[in-house]
């Protein structure tokens, strides 16, 4: 077992590092996925980094902004409904 430095001087880590988002998203093909898994099985610092990336992505996916918009003003709602009905009429006549 070798332990990597897990920094930009280590080419093996660098190669894996560039693919980690695709790995997290399940977008790597079978061979690349296996290469990443083989590397991280032997590289605790990469595992640690991967975990922190996953937690960051999880936080993004749960993100709720502090500000919310108010309800749609009645006048705008009227315009939206009219626009929708006009669009449906165009679709119907097309």
């Amino acid at each position, binding site marked *: 077992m070798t332990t990597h*430095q*897990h*920094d*930009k*001087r280590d080419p093996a880590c*660098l190669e894996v*590092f*560039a693919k*980690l*988002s*695709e790995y997290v*998203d399940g*977008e790597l093909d079978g061979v690349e996925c296996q290469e990443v898994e083989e590397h991280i099985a032997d590289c605790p*610092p990469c595992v*640690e*980094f991967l*975990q*922190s*990336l996953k*937690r*960051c*992505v999880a*936080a*993004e*996916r*749960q*993100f*709720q*902004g*502090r*500000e*919310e*918009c108010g309800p*749609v003003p009645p006048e*705008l*709602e009227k*315009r*939206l*409904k009219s*626009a*929708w009905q*006009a*669009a*449906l009429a*165009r*679709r119907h006549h*097309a």
Partner: protein
Amino acid sequence: MEWARRLLAGDESAFTPFVESFQNRIFQYTWLMCGQREDAEEVAQDTLLKIFESFDQLEDPERVKAWVFRIAKNYCLMKRRKSVFAPDRELSLDELLPGQEGERPIQVADTAELPEGRVLRQELSEELERAMRALPDTYRSVVLLRDVEDLSTADTAEVLDLTEDTVKQRLHRGRLALRKSLAAYVEKAQ
């Protein structure tokens, strides 16, 4: 999406649920892309109006989310062209490498495991918002669509007129920049 399909069929009872399901999402996107609440509200309302005006052009209700965000993106761009803004910059992978962060292990807090979880989650969310605002636009738009709105890589590419490879590259760099910002926050908080 069920509400879109029903609206296309002329079902008025789908109107309010459709608006409610998108209104705040659109606002959140425009607010984070425009930077000013007033601009964001205006752009969000313009987007909603455009959605209904062009509802006859919605070809695939299953992909309504991508269609909606494409309209929102276009209005954000129009608003930005009218305002003064800093030019985008590239995030270099080199500056985001973990070896740049010193000796100490860097971690984003796993707030679910901490006793003060709710408060920390709130703080993390606020810090994440700040970090997203600090991202260059080109990365922020990809992160918002892929991670916050959960669009696919293909849909995000279509919304932003990018290749899928570019979406993947920007998403990765955006995430790494956010991870770095949040890690620094956690360190400061300790």
